[in-house]
């Protein structure tokens, strides 16, 4: 009897393991997307970005990011407040991220008390002059690519992602290595139209914050320009109770101090 039980549980264990192995590509992609961009109901973090150009000169960006999930895996709202450098200090930025249509973006220039609506259909332009692109910060809609599982070992899934509309992007495809245990994408490599690797993103440090595996240090490199940006996230907090009204013109003009303290 005992033996039988052991056999049954061994079979169940193996079957369970096998099930974990046999996640569909779409499930892996959805879980990776979720762990990258949708953890918690909301969250805040300070980002410190250092851009290094081909001659070793550096520039710094320091900002606070507030995020609210509107729909799980779908629309989100972002609030970005710039602390550094000096010429953008005090500017604030709101993005209503939409899946399936252009985002809505507003920028507030305090020197002129001006709220500008930003036409921004190109999500693959540089984020604040860094090596990161808008899409790296707010996420690329998973429906825009077809995904294949090209490798799977003990530690990582490797995915190849090919754009459905190749004319809309500068890459022909990108690969992603996803940590099997927590579904955090650990690296991405972008290949240009001639098949040459020209851009990489790496997670340099992952921490468990409030039970959410969180990339706290990451690097984007532009191999053509020989430049890179390292971003460190600090003071990362989830489920802080952000209200929807934070992401409106009112708080664009009067930044919500309680969330921006250094």
């Amino acid at each position, binding site marked *: 009897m005992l033996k039988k039980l052991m056999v049954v549980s061994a079979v169940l264990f193996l079957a369970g393991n096998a099930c974990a192995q046999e996640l569909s590509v779409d499930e892996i992609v959805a879980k990776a997307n979720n762990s990258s961009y949708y953890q918690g109901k909301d969250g805040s973090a300070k980002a410190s970005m250092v851009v290094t150009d081909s001659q070793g000169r550096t520039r710094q960006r320091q900002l606070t990011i507030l995020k609210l999930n509107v729909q799980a895996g779908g629309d989100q709202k972002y609030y970005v407040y710039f602390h550094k450098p*000096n010429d953008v200090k005090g500017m604030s930025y709101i993005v209503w991220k939409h899946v399936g249509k252009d985002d809505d973006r507003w920028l507030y220039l305090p020197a*002129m008390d001006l709220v500008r609506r930003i*036409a921004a*259909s*190109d999500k693959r332009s*540089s984020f604040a002059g860094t090596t990161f692109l808008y899409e790296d910060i707010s996420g690329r809609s998973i429906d825009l690519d077809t995904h294949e599982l090209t490798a799977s070992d003990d530690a990582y899934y490797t995915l190849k992602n090919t754009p459905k509309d190749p004319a809309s992007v500068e890459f022909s495809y990108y690969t992603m290595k996803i940590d099997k245990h927590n579904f955090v994408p650990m690296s991405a490599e972008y290949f240009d139209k001639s098949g040459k690797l020209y851009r990489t993103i790496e997670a340099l440090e992952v921490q468990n914050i409030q039970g959410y595996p969180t990339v706290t240090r990451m690097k984007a490199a532009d191999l053509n320009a020989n430049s890179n940006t390292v971003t460190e996230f600090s003071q990362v907090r989830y489920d802080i109770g952000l209200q929807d009204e934070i992401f409106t013109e*009112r708080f664009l003009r009067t930044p919500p101090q309680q969330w921006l303290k250094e």
Partner: protein
Amino acid sequence: MKRVCILSFIMLFWAALSARAADLPEWNGFIEQDYGARLSRDTLTKHEDYNLLEQRLQLKTRYAVTGDNVFSDWNSVIRFKGDAVVDEYFQTTAYSEVRELNLAFRPSDLVDVKLGRQVLTWGTGDYLFINDLFPKDYVSFYTGRDDEYLKKPSDALRMSLYPEPANIDFVLIPYFTANTMPEGDRLSFFDSFQGGITGRASERSAIRPAMQAENAQYALRIYRNFDSAEGAVYFYRGFDPSPRSYLDEAAQQLFYERLDAYGTSLRGPFGSGIASIEMGYYHSVQDDAGDNRLIENSMLKWLLGYEQDLGNDLKLGLQYLCEQKLDYSAYSAALLPYDYVWDEYRHLLTQRITKLYKNQTVMLGLFNFWSPSDKDGYLRLSCAYDISDQWKLTVGANLPWGEDEITDFGMMQKNKNVFMRLRYGF
């Protein structure tokens, strides 16, 4: 006024320095060298070969009120921003200008208040303003100072209310601040009393509304979002911020006529860009019938705008502005034989092209005004390079032109310049 500015500047500086080191608010700002060379000699103005030469220091700080008091409970923030300028064009000693000195607080969840000197902006236009009748500085605009200086601060009370159906901004400006317009010393312009483009020879003056309670200005904006689109209605009661009406022809006096403005705007995603529409009805209170040849006619203004991101950090913006004098037949019937005659309609088109290079550290910008009805225009070119996080170099050109001397851009045709600004931020 100037003395008050300098005094408050010094007092704030002293207050900041005398605070305990731990409480010391952070100071930021920049120092900048500006130079603008004329493209052609203009002997009418003070200096015939340049129209901008100055060194500028800007300091700004903010202080969040702490402690056990009502202002702390109201999340009060005091902001200060002031410029000290050595204006070598006029070879005077330094002057200072307080651009912001205000107290902002939130007495309830539904109310924001900002009291004191502040810059105020609203509306959908890009360098064009219909319902934003807050003061502007067009001398800065034409000589090549930073865009920031196009907007002049107002001493005002701004109250913002956020009830459920729509947000309300109410602004009370107790005394009048005029637009800074060319006066001949630095920029030549069309002076109707001189009958042509005039510089320092101009003897005209503009009489401001008296500082009294009945001359206070009110501005109101009620706005809300409709999904991704933003709608607003506006009201303004005050004065035309530019002196467009004649008070006393013999004494060469202009004045700022009473103006009530009513308007509305809508802005939102359209096609693959952002479209906007704004309109305003200007009621010239002192010329209700429109038959006074000395006072501005009532007007209707329409503005259409469209902006699109073409990818690769290239953006395009287009605008069309139409201005109509509403009592044109009464106005034209009232004109005397020697009067300058304005058209009923003015049409103005603008184009903006912005392209960023080198990881957004180099910006090439073009902004063009062109009026087919006035047969004039104004091309603004700029190239800005962020040398580092601290240093920024901007070069550019201001190229107004026109077939006639009396139109808005045509009168500026002798003021073409190329400029450069070198800024160190800290």
